[in-house]
């Protein structure tokens, strides 16, 4: 265990509680994502770790046994990549990357050598002497990462590292960033509101909502065993099926579903991939729109529940728009979960209090990831060794 955060909370002047008391442990080389909608406290938590915000009294931030809580941002040795990248426009790429080393007052040849190493790792050789303004968004992102990594920080913190890029570039850089972080072998925390980004990059994901961690675990654990309706909605886009629950049955507008277990006071959700068009299905629905997605079609269905549902339909053709179909959902595919806190659900205020008062327990997924070098690919192993030498 390298980074331990205990009892981190933040109340802004004026009394707004941005973050309720939060604990988090992060193992060496682990990459953790803080995932949540805007205003859920994830950026505040990251900035507290960086030393850019002061937590409420009682917080502890410990790295490898050293208590960092009282240290300022200048001495804390956390690398940070900002959402806007915050590159210094008056310095070249090389000047930006070397800035942290210059502040450490290293000798010039040493700075040059280490800047060259990071430039090579981030494949920025072609841009090393360019002005920041002459770089594209993706190149800036890499420079920001290189600048944060050059002083060999204890932990790398990334605040929405891809959100400043346009959609086409974001998908491509997501994979690139994931591989680069693994090559570095660095312990990292990153903040995002994009579930795909969290899934693609992180070892563990902490889903946050209204200043609390709702659940933390591997992507698979969050998807397959979400703890609350909020988590299910946020990870894997589960759709709520609000209806009358009576004797193990869920009565919806379009028909009745059999529940696999009792669901009193809880909510029932389903994912688009678990809804099937089935002539013998129990639900009636009408097809509002059909979108071709390549391997399958996405159907927009009305009449089955209050809100339109989406279903994924594979096959070479889809039902006609406007036609009436019947749907089936396997009972084991229904997610029966405590009503999670969410801004989308105005009726949840009473349940919200119940959930809020339940002490958060984590890690729910107790798997401690093995050392990065052992677990990663041969390619990563090579880079990891190289990085180890680089860090020596």
């Amino acid at each position, binding site marked *: 265990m390298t980074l331990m955060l205990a009892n981190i909370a933040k109340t802004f002047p004026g009394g707004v509680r941005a973050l309720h008391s939060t604990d988090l442990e992060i193992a060496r080389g682990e990459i953790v994502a803080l995932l949540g909608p805007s205003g859920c406290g994830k950026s505040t938590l990251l900035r507290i770790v960086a030393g*850019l915000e002061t937590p409420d009294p009682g917080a502890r931030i410990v790295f490898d046994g050293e208590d960092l809580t009282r240290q300022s941002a200048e001495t804390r040795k956390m690398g940070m990549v900002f959402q806007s990248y915050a590159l210094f426009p008056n310095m070249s790429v090389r000047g930006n990357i070397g800035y942290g080393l210059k502040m*450490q007052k290293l000798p010039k040849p040493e700075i040059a050598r280490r800047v060259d190493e990071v430039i090579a790792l981030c494949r920025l050789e072609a841009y090393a002497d360019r002005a920041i303004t002459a770089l594209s968004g993706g190149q800036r992102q890499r420079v920001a990462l290189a600048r944060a990594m050059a002083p060999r920080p204890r932990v790398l913190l990334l605040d929405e590292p891809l959100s400043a890029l346009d959609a086409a570039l974001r998908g491509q850089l997501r994979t690139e960033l994931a591989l680069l972080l693994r090559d570095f072998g660095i312990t990292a925390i990153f903040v995002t509101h994009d579930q795909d980004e969290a899934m693609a990059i992180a070892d563990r994901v902490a889903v946050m909502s209204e200043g609390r961690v709702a659940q933390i675990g591997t992507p698979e654990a969050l998807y397959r065993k979400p703890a609350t309706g909020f988590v299910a909605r946020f990870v894997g886009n589960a759709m709520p099926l609000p209806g009358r629950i009576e004797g193990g049955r869920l009565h919806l507008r379009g028909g009745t579903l059999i529940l696999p277990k009792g669901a009193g006071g809880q909510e029932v959700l389903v994912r688009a991939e678990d809804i099937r068009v089935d002539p013998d299905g129990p639900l009636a629905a009408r097809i509002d729109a059909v979108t071709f997605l390549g391997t399958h079609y996405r159907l927009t269905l009305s009449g089955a529940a209050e809100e339109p549902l989406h279903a994924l339909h594979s096959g070479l053709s889809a039902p006609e728009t406007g036609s009436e179909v019947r749907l089936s959902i396997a009972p084991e595919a229904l997610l029966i979960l405590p009503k999670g806190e969410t801004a989308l659900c105005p009726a949840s205020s009473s349940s919200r209090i119940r959930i809020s008062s339940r002490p958060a327990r984590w890690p729910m997924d107790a798997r401690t990831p093995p050392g990065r070098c052992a677990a990663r690919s041969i390619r990563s192993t090579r880079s990891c060794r190289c990085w180890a030498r680089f860090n020596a």
Partner: protein
Amino acid sequence: TFCLLPLAIFTLAFLAIPLGRLILASSESGDGWGIYLRILQTPRYLSTLLQTVLVSLAVTGTALAISTIAGLFLVRNRFAGRNVLLSILTLPLAFPGVVVGFMIILLGGRQGLVNQLLPGHWVFAYSITGLFLGYLYFSIPRVLLTVMASAEKIDPALEEAARTLGAPPHRIVLDVLLPALAPALIAAGAIAFATAMGAFGTAFTLATDIDVLPMVIYTEFTLSANIAMASALSVMLGLVTWALLLIAR
């Protein structure tokens, strides 16, 4: 497009004709165009020109330094009465040069406040010091407002990035804040310089033993009726200011 063209031409003519007339007038003495050579050979004109440029540069530099410090302080700190203070800071903008000269006399003249409080040799109003203070008083609010507008636009993440990279406060000022303010400082400095070069009201009110170029032009024109020399000196003043403005841009 529209019917902008004739109006634009009219505007350009309005700006160009007086200028052309001025340049022509400078050649209408016995010396012809040689009058410019004569300016360069007359120590009195040259030293006046130099003194005007030096005072203007000093005012510009001092105004930039003071405004940057005060501007950064005002942008970074929210306190009660801040908005009232900001409104008061714009008050000097409303006073013309004559009034500013007049204020300097009230402060540093023979019967001025300073001389009353500290009797002795504290009469600075009629010297180059008075002129300097008057111009400074005139310039600071303008530069301050520009610096504040620019400082508010600096991405706070830039400063935070420097902090996480281990930069102490003075390095943040040097490496982040000043470079980010530079365009605003240059623009405000150019305006302050041009204003100081041409400030007549302040100089005229204070005037006893100060020679600045606008004063000399006025003297040549009104008292000596030497229109050609006044024109030539005007063109010189315009060219020097314009050249420095262009360099700043």
